[in-house]
């Protein structure tokens, strides 16, 4: 247990010691929030959608967590490169514990980044329903765990950082745009609807939006169950691939 804690703590220390990292990873979500929020706001309202900031903010919080989490997972590549991974791999600790500590650490950082965006959004007019905030954090944590584990799984298979842009542009970005984070997915074509439904982020965004601004119903329970299932699956896959890493 102590080793899992140690690995968790290391991820937090690394992240929060570097101011440029924190600010750097806040830049994109804030830009999206301000640019899209104020840019599309009037059109969204005219189309009868209501207040766009209310709709958009949960999506941007999810986005911030999504990107931070994926990056925290893929960061495993740097540990391979800087050699630190070897230090943990030769220690008499099971690889599952190493993977678990890293994933929980990365996920914690991602949740905190999401919460920082949440706090900032209050200043630009987001008015959430605070009663279900714990539920919102739970959804955020599930998104964080899923994508840290996914990042770790990918990094376990990657040899260097060259593939990083590929992963971001062809996997993470599409998942983000097809999750309903920045526009509603009600009207899309049927074929795309399937992709939207199997995208775990869709359920994360939906759950987050429902707990922050909407009404809680059966849909939220379904989202929760799906996310927990996917999280377990991805942590399992991540651990398996991580256990096969050779350096």
């Amino acid at each position, binding site marked *: 247990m*102590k*080793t899992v804690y*140690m690995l968790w703590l*290391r991820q937090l*220390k*690394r992240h929060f*010691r*570097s101011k440029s990292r924190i600010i750097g990873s806040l830049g994109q979500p804030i830009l999206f929030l301000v640019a899209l929020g104020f840019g599309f706001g009037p059109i969204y309202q005219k189309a009868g959608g209501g207040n766009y900031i209310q709709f958009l903010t949960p999506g941007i919080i999810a986005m911030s967590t999504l990107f931070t989490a994926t990056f925290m997972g893929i960061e495993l590549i740097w540990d*391979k*490169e*800087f*050699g*630190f*991974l*070897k*230090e*943990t*791999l*030769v*220690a*008499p*600790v*099971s690889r599952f514990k190493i993977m678990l500590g890293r994933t929980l650490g990365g996920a914690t950082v991602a949740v905190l980044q999401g919460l920082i965006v949440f706090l900032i959004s209050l200043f630009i007019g987001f008015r959430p329903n605070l009663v279900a905030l714990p539920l919102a954090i739970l959804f955020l944590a599930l998104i964080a765990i899923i994508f840290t584990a996914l990042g770790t799984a990918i990094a376990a298979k990657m*040899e*260097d*950082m060259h593939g990083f842009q590929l992963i971001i542009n062809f996997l993470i970005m599409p998942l983000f745009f097809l999750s309903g984070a920045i526009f509603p997915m009600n009207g899309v074509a049927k074929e795309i609807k399937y992709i939207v439904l199997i995208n775990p982020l869709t359920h994360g965004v939906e759950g987050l939006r429902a707990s922050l601004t909407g009404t809680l119903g059966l849909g939220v329970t379904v989202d929760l169950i799906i996310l927990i299932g996917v999280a377990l699956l991805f942590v399992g896959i991540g651990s398996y691939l991580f256990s096969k890493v*050779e*350096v």
Partner: protein
Amino acid sequence: MSEEKIIEVKSLTKKFREFTAVHNISFEVHKGQIFGFLGPNGAGKSTTIKILTTLLHPNSGKILVDGKNPVTQPNEVRKAFGIVFQDPSLDDELTAWENMEFHGVLYSIPKQLRRQRMEQLLKIVELWARKDELVKRFSGGMKRRLEIARGLMHHPKILFLDEPTLGLDPQTRNNIWEHIKELNKKEGVTVFFTTHYMEEAQRVANYICIIDRGKIIAKGTSAELKKKTKTKSLEDAFIKLTGRNIREEEATPLDNLRMRRRVWGRRR
């Protein structure tokens, strides 16, 4: 030194695709020995160490480290050894102290003993005054020293040292070897090391194995090797055995990344 064997390697072979890094090698290391594993660049030294320390899986061969098989009982084997790697394995974003602490927790050294050894070792490598600085601010030599101090923290049965003293000044090299020899004498720690300093090998190793192009080409004490090759120093014996050609090492993508980092790192 006892007759008991702590490392046994029989017909070990490791291939990377078409390239055979280690070809059918056999050797054994006795308990309490200081075993020098020498060879030119790319001879297969680090590959062998990686296999013995569970980081790589062999293609064939029988290996026992402290009586256990690194392939099937990796966790048992990992409890038996400590290692100082050839290339860096510190976390640059943590302090020297945190790196040591992390290691101590990974190896479940009780807190009191851990703190005591951290202080002792950081003083030996003369980093005690800078223990709270981030490792990324350290020079290459300081990082090396920290790495060695960390590797010596948990007093393992076997200590692997892959070119431990590379790039260190003679004073530091001496201090470190004094400490290692003391561990060897007092606690019976078996030492398995590689080095390119033949004079160092001659002085500290009580048994030497020379590997070249993935094959073991000579074994014996330093005196035996000199006698066999009719040379006066281990360096001459080594050159006579392995030839004068300079070896090329094939670079992996990871090596390329590391190289790039070294190049960019200097700009800071």
